[in-house]
């Protein structure tokens, strides 16, 4: 180094105060600021996009948490329904009689049909279920509160603008006039829409709910947990504590890392070809969905478990070995209990990912139209994300806000699971 600098002539002194140097400095500082602004702009864009995403979901979805109801009087005529066999009766006639009572002045058949369109198509089913639950209702006249059908629900929530010209509205002036007479008589009421959570899917937006999807997702996650949790922990313990360093274990490690990055739809193809085609398991069943999700969650659990085992300080291992524990005893009695908080946290996060997974469930048929929750893991079911997909594909306007509401419910579950994971981590995890 020294001879090089000796041979060179020293550089001419730089005049730092000259105009040229000042301009150069200014340019360099400007570049510095620019980079900083780019960074801020990028982050603001990302945060803004997240805000728009959540904002658009909330602004369309909150409406579906409320459902407009109409109160009507129906006379349960013993001639139409017998108390001995309430399941089969002419409830349609009873409901249309109720519509006539609602509008005593309307006599024209066409206008009456239009009036019947205000209440939901499922009114007869609601009435039937009421009568089956309480047979003594036969012969009485009861007040029945039923959802109004989707266009009127939208009208009451001001989604349909009453000031638009008639030909650009989904409801014409006479339909709106009929509805407004009901509003004036105070029969219309917006109530909290518990049906969104507690009833199952329906062709009619005003009746559709998520109960079937929530139960289906629960079963699928149960299967997923029961399979991936024990297998993942066992595999991780082997790879972390016992596996010799050789080509086989290298292969397994590369494999696990790759499985974590395989597109989810490929797991769906695997489930379809192997579980359904080869093993003959039933289509659309939460069992198959859970199996596929388990294969996808397995790498996550293995990686998390290995990291948690690594985080236990070697002194504990050495102390246990020093007083004569076998290697298995060290793991079962000491390492695993200390690592379990980290493993649980990672498992919950892995299950949350599985809960949001859609594509593989579509391929194994968990997008069926089902009007009741599944009774077990072998029965056809939908899951929350596939239900969202079904509703997003439905042409009825009312399903737009239902879909957003369903997404909010799904996000609610995900946030809860992640919050539990964070809580567990902060409460149980030990810093060494």
């Amino acid at each position, binding site marked *: 180094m020294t001879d090089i600098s000796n041979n060179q002539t020293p550089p001419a002194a730089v005049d730092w105060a000259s105009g040229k140097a000042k301009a150069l400095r200014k340019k*360099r*500082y400007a*570049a*510095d600021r620019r*980079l*900083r602004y*780019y*960074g801020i*702009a*990028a*982050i603001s864009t*990302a*945060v803004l*996009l*997240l805000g*728009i*995403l959540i904002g*658009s*979901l909330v602004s*369309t979805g909150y409406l579906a948490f409320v459902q407009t109801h109409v109160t009507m009087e129906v006379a349960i005529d013993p001639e139409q329904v017998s108390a001995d066999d309430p399941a089969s009766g002419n409830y349609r006639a009873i409901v249309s009689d109720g519509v006539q009572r609602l509008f005593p002045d309307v006599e024209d058949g066409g206008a009456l049909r239009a009036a019947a369109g205000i209440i939901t198509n499922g009114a007869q089913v609601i009435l039937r279920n009421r009568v089956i639950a309480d047979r003594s209702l036969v012969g009485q006249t009861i007040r029945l509160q039923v959802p109004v059908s989707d266009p009127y629900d939208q009208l009451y929530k001001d989604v349909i603008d009453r000031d638009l010209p008639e030909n650009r509205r989904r409801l014409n002036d006479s339909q709106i006039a009929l509805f407004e007479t009901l509003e004036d008589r105070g029969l219309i009421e917006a109530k909290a829409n518990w049906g969104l959570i507690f009833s199952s899917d329906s062709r009619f937006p005003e009746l559709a709910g998520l109960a079937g999807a929530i139960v289906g997702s629960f079963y699928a996650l149960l299967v997923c947990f029961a399979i991936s949790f*024990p*297998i993942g922990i*066992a*595999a991780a313990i*082997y790879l972390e504590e*016992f596996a010799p360093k050789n080509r086989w274990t290298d292969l*397994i490690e*590369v494999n696990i*890392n*790759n*499985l974590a*990055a*395989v*597109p*989810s*739809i*490929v797991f769906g*193809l*695997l489930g*379809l*070809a192997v579980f359904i085609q080869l*093993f003959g398991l039933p289509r659309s069943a939460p069992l198959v969905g859970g199996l596929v999700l388990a*294969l996808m969650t*397995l790498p996550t659990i293995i990686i998390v478990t290995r990291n948690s085992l690594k985080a236990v300080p070697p002194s504990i291992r050495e102390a246990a070995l020093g007083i004569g524990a076998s290697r298995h005893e060290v793991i079962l009695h000491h390492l695993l209990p200390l690592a379990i908080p980290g493993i649980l946290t990672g498992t919950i996060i892995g299950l949350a990912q599985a809960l*949001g997974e*859609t*594509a593989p469930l*579509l*391929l194994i048929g968990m997008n069926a139209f089902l009007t009741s929750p599944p009774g*077990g893991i*072998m029965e056809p079911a939908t899951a929350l994300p596939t239900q*969202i*997909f079904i509703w*997003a*594909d439905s042409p009825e306007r009312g399903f*737009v806000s239902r879909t*957003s509401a369903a*997404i909010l419910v799904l*996000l609610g579950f*995900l946030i809860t699971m992640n919050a539990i994971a964070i809580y567990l981590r902060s409460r149980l995890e030990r810093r060494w």
Partner: protein
Amino acid sequence: MNWQGAVTGYLFLSIILFSLAAFYVGRSAGARFVAAEGASVHSRPIYHGAFAAIWVGLPTLLLVVLWLLFQDAVVRALVVASLPSSLTEGASPAQISLFVSEIRNVAAGRIFSEPRPEIAAAAERYASWTVIANWAMVVVALCAMALALYLARSRSAPRYRARQSFERALDVIMIGSAGLAILVTLGIIVSLTYEAIQFFMLVPPAEFFFGLNWEPQIPIRADQIAGTGAFGAVPVFTGTLLIATIALIFAIPIGLMSAIYLVEFANPRIRGVIKPILEILAGVPTVVYGFFAVLTVAPAIRQAGSLFGIAISPNSALAAGAVMGIMIIPFISSLSDDALKAVPQSMRDGSLAMGATRSETVTKVLIPAALPGIMGGILLAASRAIGETMIVVMAAGLTANLTANPLDGVTTVTVQIVTLLIGDTAFDNPKTLSAFALGLVLFIVTLCLNVLALRIVQRYRERYE
């Protein structure tokens, strides 16, 4: 079908109960050894119990699971073999599988019209053989457990090394679990390849890989005009690349810039707020992004287009690509974040000490040093974008256009797989099988990208450690 589930459920329950019983039997035997011989007994009583339980429970559990998985396939094969030759003579595999599904429908009571006598008889056989197989499984499982309990009990003695036996069994369980990962990969490769080969026997590979026309239809009648369908997948591949490219064009600048800002400029408090927000973007399910694309982004882009008088397709590649870009921002930003942080502090300090500004340090020192890590992250993000399904299923088109115009609708590999496999899935026509060929291509491409990316990231990490 329901009683079958009940039988299986009770069988699993009884396996658990038997194992527990075996545990207590083994443990009390161990306790007696201790009482009789004191300290010279080899294993503690609990290991005698665990040893008995694992021998009673585990082999039977494996047996029952395998039985359940293969019972249906075996019964099906037997029923097919028992079909009268008048039916099976000269029948193609497709016809056979049609018979099988008919038989199963009849056996399950889903009858729409009076079945043919041969089919009805076969359905009866199918149902009765299923019953026999189920009860045989119960009997075999109970016998296996009794035998295992007897063997375990007869081997245990004061000097018996029960702990070692138990630990060996644990080793087997752990190795089996670790090997499952390989089994899954093998399962993916074998099943996709098998179905893809079936496809390539119907459609020549040259047509699939180089054909420019994608119309996956099958003729309903033999003489149907234009009913043969076309399986040239090039427009599907270009559509996938177009959407993935748009996504990366959106995501790389935003992700990279935010990573640079977070690592080099932001104070820890801002970092602590911004990082979780970016992680939320990664945790949002893709079906939500898909709905967001349909509900908000696509209409917004169309409106913007009509302002300038440009007609934009309702399912333009731009909308799907942009939303996919939002989805992969967090991947790029967190992987670039890791890469930038891994650059040794000494390089940063050296650059600053030479009088470079922060931005000069970033652009001239840090980014070149972290480039392999950043490239790895971008490759991983690209693999995500190619394999992403729900956003494109909901927001991209179904028709395969060979175009590079982002305002047109294009289709992708994943969209085609989903649309081809939703609904009916008879495994005998090129329409269904082509989905598996596309899946195989998708798997291989993403696998190559992932291996490459992981290798780059790993090598780079080693360099600075």
